[in-house]
């Protein structure tokens, strides 16, 4: 192999001297290769949890799975604290008819017994399936949504739902029964909103508010090209013309907010401990907001009315918690539990809502036997090869 490689390099160097770009190939080129089998592959055969929603009325918990591209529904009390076996779901929805792709956010309407899920990066759709659906079934409704939608929340009273959109720093509001190509009722977007790479979203019906978890990546948005070194109109209130890294945040808006409206409150700053905040939930009963921190494997709880650079009132964090690259979060006020969907280790965890510190989960739902590795891929659209370390680099 070494001898052949050296030969290639030498001959390759010789070619360039004589060949001019733009040359037409001979008309009889026959393509070589074809059905070559891979010699190795890295593929995780198990589901990987992303979003999570709990329905305490019907005693189910549902998760999205962006790896096998499915939705899984479990009995709410399934799993245990110490079982190492895979937990059997009640139902799994999977297959091309479902339109489930690189799926992220999820919510359940317990009265209509419908599960909603939004595809994140490719499909640009949100789908609705009956909670009783199983296998390769067509959605009851399939809605076109903006590219890079991630989070989902809804208001039964207003009959509206909200979708967060990462790259466009926006929130779009639709009718709850929207279907097909239906325009949003309203949208939030703009530099004053504080929306910056929004992910988790929660609708607090009690207080008529929407809360959003932001990673802090902010695109300039204003033009198809950057402004250059001398902005034409150097006015602070003009739309931003260059990208920024903002601190991560939780922003809260009136449920009727639209356009470039400022948030009512924003939790942001070094004391907040926010670190890639993902799934978000509002607990109006106990007046708290909770968020999962993907960056440091924790669940943070804040007072619902907290604002500014404030520390969480408690945090579930530490090796006993088994929180591992969490993505989804749900609060079950009826059963006083908080749910976390892990991305990195094939589990979802149920904690007591009031847990604090390094506490073990009370139940674990496993979509693979304990100890099953996870490649950690999330729609890998690029690769690179580190020739020095002989390592393959895969971003998500």
């Amino acid at each position, binding site marked *: 192999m070494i001898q*052949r490689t050296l030969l290639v390099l030498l001959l390759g160097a010789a070619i360039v001297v004589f060949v001019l770009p733009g040359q*037409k190939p001979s008309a009889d080129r026959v393509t070589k*290769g074809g059905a070559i089998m891979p010699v190795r592959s890295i593929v995780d055969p198990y589901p990987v949890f992303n979003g999570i929603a709990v329905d305490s009325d019907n005693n189910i918990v549902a998760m999205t799975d962006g790896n096998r591209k499915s939705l899984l529904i479990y009995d709410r009390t399934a799993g245990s604290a110490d079982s190492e076996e895979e937990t059997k779901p009640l139902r799994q929805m999977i297959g091309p008819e479902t339109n489930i792709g690189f799926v992220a956010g999820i919510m359940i309407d317990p009265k209509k017994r419908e599960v909603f899920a939004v595809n994140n990066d490719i499909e640009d759709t949100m789908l609705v399936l009956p909670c009783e659906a199983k296998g390769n079934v067509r959605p009851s409704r399939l809605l076109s949504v903006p590219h890079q939608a991630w989070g989902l929340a809804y208001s039964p009273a207003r009959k509206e739902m909200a979708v967060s959109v990462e790259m466009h720093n926006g929130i779009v509001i639709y009718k709850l029964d929207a279907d097909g190509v239906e325009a949003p009722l309203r949208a939030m977007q703009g530099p004053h909103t504080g929306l910056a790479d929004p992910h988790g979203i929660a609708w607090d019906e009690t207080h008529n508010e929407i809360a959003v978890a932001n990673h802090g990546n902010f695109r300039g948005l204003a033009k198809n090209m950057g402004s250059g070194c001398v902005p034409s109109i150097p006015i602070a209130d003009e739309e931003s013309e260059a990208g920024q890294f903002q601190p991560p945040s939780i922003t809260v808006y009136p449920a009727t907010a639209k356009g470039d409206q400022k948030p009512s409150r924003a939790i942001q700053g070094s004391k907040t401990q926010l670190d890639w905040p993902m799934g978000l939930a509002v607990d109006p009963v106990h007046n708290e907001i909770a968020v999962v921190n993907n960056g440091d494997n924790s669940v943070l709880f804040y007072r619902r009315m907290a604002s500014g650079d404030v520390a969480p009132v408690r945090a579930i964090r530490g090796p006993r918690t088994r929180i591992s690259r969490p993505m989804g979060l749900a609060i079950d006020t009826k059963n006083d539990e908080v749910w976390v969907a892990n991305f990195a280790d094939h589990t979802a965890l149920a904690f007591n809502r009031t847990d604090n510190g390094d506490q073990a989960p009370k139940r674990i739902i496993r979509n693979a036997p304990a100890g099953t590795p996870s490649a950690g891929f999330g729609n890998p659209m690029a690769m690179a090869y580190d020739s020095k370390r002989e390592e393959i680099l895969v971003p998500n």
Partner: protein
Amino acid sequence: MANGNVTAKRVLAGQATKLGRTVHGMAYNPVRDEIIVPNPLSDAILVFRAGASGDEAPLRIIQGPCTQLVTPHAVSFDPVNQEILVASLTGKAVYVFPATANGNVAPARLLHGPKTKLGHVVGLGVDPAHNVLAVANSKDVLIFNRTDNGDVAPRAAIAGPKTGIEDEPWELEVYKGKIFLAASNHLHQNLYSGVTQKGISNKVPEDPWLNPDLGFIGVWLITDNGDVPPLYKIGGPFSGLLHPVGLALNPKDGEIYVSDSVRNGVLEFLTPDFFEQSNTKN
């Protein structure tokens, strides 16, 4: 390459990294032993030490109004000329920065404008020997002179039914006079501009990944022009490829690494012949 269902050796993640969760390009700089990663969601290019791990901050960040970066989607590195190349989907542009660029700096060169025909730009790579730049564009591969700047027409385009390239060709690598392309062939139709509907259709598009015309890995000569079939190809049911997107080369061992979003995995192909000297007339 690792095999089976395995965990990563190292993971670079967390707020301090300034990475976004949308990374559609990546490059390794063997000269400086660095990794170059775009963050399209903050209009930035991040440069890390290659051995970085955990919540580690980048060594350098290219960001700000002088950079003119808008949604930098993919990156490539030219080790001979020590330049970082950046592809912008939204900007329909290719930016070139010195390898050591840092902060709010203007690009050394910027390809942009109607003559360039740049549209859905993702993969890109330089052949320093021929002094040309290959760009994976909306439905084709465009070839420019490496030092082209401004609104310049491509000198060649690989496009047409014989190429097999359909919608959104993705990552691209250039090695010794050959273009290696992940021809994803997914049919992506976005009905929105930002958060506003374009009004171009009243039908929800089919899932892009369900396009029955599967993608493939294709290899062309950097000298090719027009409707040219690939010199080499990996595709079809035995390959396990559905709609390949990510692509990396290991010429030393004759290996091609491919990521496939539908499979949510990575595959390795052993094809030393693909890297060997070719008759440029074929």
